[in-house]
């Protein structure tokens, strides 16, 4: 169980700060976008990264050739890195489906935790230039960063980081899948899925969880909207910048028929070309922001799952309690001979005559046993419920703080990106203006 106060946060990778974002064009460099808590025992021991991606071909389950991508997970003991010896890291290859398997295991095993999400399975909210193809190198690269982020999130979680299956995912290439299946989580996975999709009414849900679920719904909705607008806006912005490139061409043609004006026009044209070209970098930066939003879009889903699970446990408790109450009532009726509640048995016995005293005794005995068992069940379920509420709420609070922090950071870097874009625009147009003034 965790401490009350959150451990100090330290960025685990150099984060783009206000100053260096403007200078560095780290477009292809690895950038994870979470502030990771160095407090967990796992991260104190090892550094984790998803270093590379590669294409593979092989036979799949139905013996057909397929092409897929594998990702290189590198782990390195922390001490070695700080000593400066820099040994070769341990590494293994995993594909996306194995990450999915890991996450499903964690979901089933820790239903009271907001489990970090994976990067999207298929490219959604794309604008026209971005390929929706899973094999597209840009998509693969962004997925690599997303998978690394996922591992770091899990590794920095106070509870998840100590999971054995997670550890072996990072360290044991062969036989990991079998180990996971041996836990028997698959059976629980199926019933979990059923429960999450079932409709039932809870009489007394914890208000906080009901509010959280509602929040999760709203967050999902608003982020989806935002991502859709962003995709359309990116498409339009691309058009605006690229059409300016046409100025470059026409100014060049025009300058050929001019004498004094020619030079100014020609050089201004070059600046228009530069302006048109600058949109590619701008939109790539924006893609990064979109990925940060997407993470929380999927996190909202994980949050809703926890709230849903609470409802389920609460519902099962209520069902058990209800069942117990009805059994107790039956006993009372049987004992006193009065029929308070309407039951088929009561009606049939009225119609067809009462039972013999022996039959009554047998029934009473059975009921007593059932009531005993029922009381045990209620006690159990009650304890489960309380336990769930307690653990889940702690993690939800942790999640809230993380979300507020991460999204604020994302907004800051978005603003910084906008500032950079404006400054570049001013520079290009000033250059063009100078050329025009020399005409």
């Amino acid at each position, binding site marked *: 169980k965790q401490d009350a106060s959150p451990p100090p946060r330290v960025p685990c990778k150099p984060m783009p700060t206000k100053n260096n974002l403007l200078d560095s064009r780290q477009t292809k460099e690895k950038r994870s976008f979470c502030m990771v808590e160095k407090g967990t025992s796992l991260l104190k021991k090892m550094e984790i990264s998803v270093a590379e991606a590669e294409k593979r071909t092989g036979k799949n389950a139905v013996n057909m050739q397929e092409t897929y991508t594998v990702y290189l997970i590198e782990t390195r003991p922390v001490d070695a890195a700080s000593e400066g010896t820099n040994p070769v890291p341990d590494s293994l290859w995993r594909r996306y489906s194995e990450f999915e398997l890991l996450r499903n295991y964690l979901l089933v095993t820790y239903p009271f935790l907001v489990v970090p999400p994976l990067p999207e399975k298929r490219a959604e909210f794309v604008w026209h230039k971005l390929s929706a193809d899973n094999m597209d190198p840009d998509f693969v690269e962004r997925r690599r960063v997303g998978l690394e982020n996922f591992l770091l999130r899990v590794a920095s979680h106070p509870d998840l980081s100590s999971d054995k299956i997670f550890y072996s995912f990072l360290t044991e290439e062969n036989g990991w899948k079998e180990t996971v299946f041996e836990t028997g989580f698959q059976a629980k996975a199926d019933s979990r899925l059923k429960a999450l999709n079932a409709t039932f009414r809870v009489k007394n849900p914890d208000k906080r969880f009901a509010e959280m679920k509602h929040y999760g719904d709203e967050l999902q909705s*608003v*982020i989806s909207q935002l991502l859709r607008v962003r995709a359309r806006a990116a498409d339009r912005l691309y058009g*605006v910048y690229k059409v*300016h490139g046409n100025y470059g061409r026409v100014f060049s043609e025009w300058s050929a*028929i001019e*004498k004094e004006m020619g030079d100014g026009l020609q050089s201004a044209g070059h600046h228009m070309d530069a302006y048109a070209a600058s949109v590619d970098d701008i939109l790539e930066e924006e893609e990064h922001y979109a990925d940060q939003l997407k993470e929380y879009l999927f996190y909202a889903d994980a949050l809703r799952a926890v709230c849903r699970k609470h409802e389920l446990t609460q519902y099962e408790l209520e069902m058990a309690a209800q069942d117990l109450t009805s059994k107790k009532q039956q006993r009372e009726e049987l004992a006193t001979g009065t029929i308070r509640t309407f039951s088929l048995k009561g009606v049939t016995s009225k119609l067809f005559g009462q039972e013999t005293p022996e039959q009554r005794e047998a029934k009473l005995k059975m009921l007593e046993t059932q009531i005993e068992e029922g009381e045990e069940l209620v006690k159990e379920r009650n304890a489960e419920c309380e336990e769930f509420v307690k653990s889940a709420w702690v993690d939800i609070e942790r999640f809230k703080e993380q979300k507020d922090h991460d999204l604020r950071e994302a907004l800051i870097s978005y*603003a910084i990106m906008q*500032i950079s874009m404006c400054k570049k625009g001013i520079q290009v147009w000033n250059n*063009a203006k100078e050329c025009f003034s020399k005409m």
Partner: protein
Amino acid sequence: AAALGTTDEPTSAMSAGAPRSLASSGQKSIQDICHPLSAEESALNPGSAADTGLILPNGTPVDTSSLASSSSLLNRLQLDDDLDGETRDLFVTVEDPKKHVSTMETYITYRVCTKTTRTEFDLPEYSVRRRYQDFDWLRNKLEESQPTHLIPPLPEKFVMKGVVDRFSEEFVETRRKALDKFLKRVADHPVLSFNEHFNAFLSAKDLNKRQGLALLTKMGESVKYVTGGYKLRARPAEFAAMGDYLDLFTQKMGTIDRIAQRIIKEQSEFLMELREYGPVYSSWSSFEEDLHDPLEGVSGCMSNCSSALEELTEDMSEDFLPVLREYVLYIESMKNVLKKRDQVQAEYETKLEAVVFREDKKPPVPSDVEKCQDRVECFNADLKADWDRWENNKRQDFRQLLTGMADKNIQHYEKCLAAWESLVPLLQDKQEAEGETS
């Protein structure tokens, strides 16, 4: 025999360089030709401002008898854009637009102020109100009465209703500036500024009456240059180059117009999406606690950027596109002047040929052929001088137009920059406060 047809002149010399021989005059240099405004020529141009004798802009009379003074006259006349205050004796401004509402129509009038020391004007100062129609009338009159000259352009007559608001401040101001430029260019022109219609425009209380009168008396003038049916063998290289240039230039203007329109369209569509951002961030902030202020801040920024972009697209529609289109229209009228010149030359060449073939005729050449020759030479001189003036004005106009375009874009980005820069410390302050309490 005078040379007919073209000479091998390099086509690149369009600028105000050394005077060169006219194609049709053979050995005569431009310095030897009397300027149409000189006293000797007044017989050929009845009713022009030259009736009162030639005066330089600074008020001194011109002595056209000597070669030197002719060339110096020409040199001075070519410097109109560089005229300093001392040499100018006619100042015109267009200002104070006002809306007039009547039962029949609504329109804008502008105050036209004139200050002058020229004796062609009865008073030293004038202040009259004119509407666009009146400027249009003036330009038509100038085209009719000065067919050998390039008349400066007017802003477009028609504007698409519903697309542009004819009475918006921005539109009226843009038009005022264009009308002001038009009058100033006429006022700076050594020939056009002495035109009596221009005088009437600047001084007459009631222009309508004058319009009628002017129409009656000036009918004969324009007939002179409407020569029909003569075929020109070949346009002299110099003027052919002008024609070619105008064709290419028109093409480029068309391309730029299309590009500008496309950009405005894309920007408008981007603006539509941008406008959706703000409300989404706002609705997000409504169910957040800690993130409420940052999200509201972002929403506000988006709104500011939307307004800035809206202003940019409006400015480009109202200031940039109209000027391009005016130039395309203007070039059409310039091409017409070139065609008229061809006609005048064709008439001369045809008549000359007819004379040459009659062997019994010896020089001096008959007077009507001589008149044709003079007409050609004057036209060529006027056109060349005006062409140089046009080149200069064109350069100024486009420098101004394109610099303006750059400025508008810079201003747009500066507005957005200010919005985002003011947001960042707001976001980061909170963060630091958070850090301290945790």
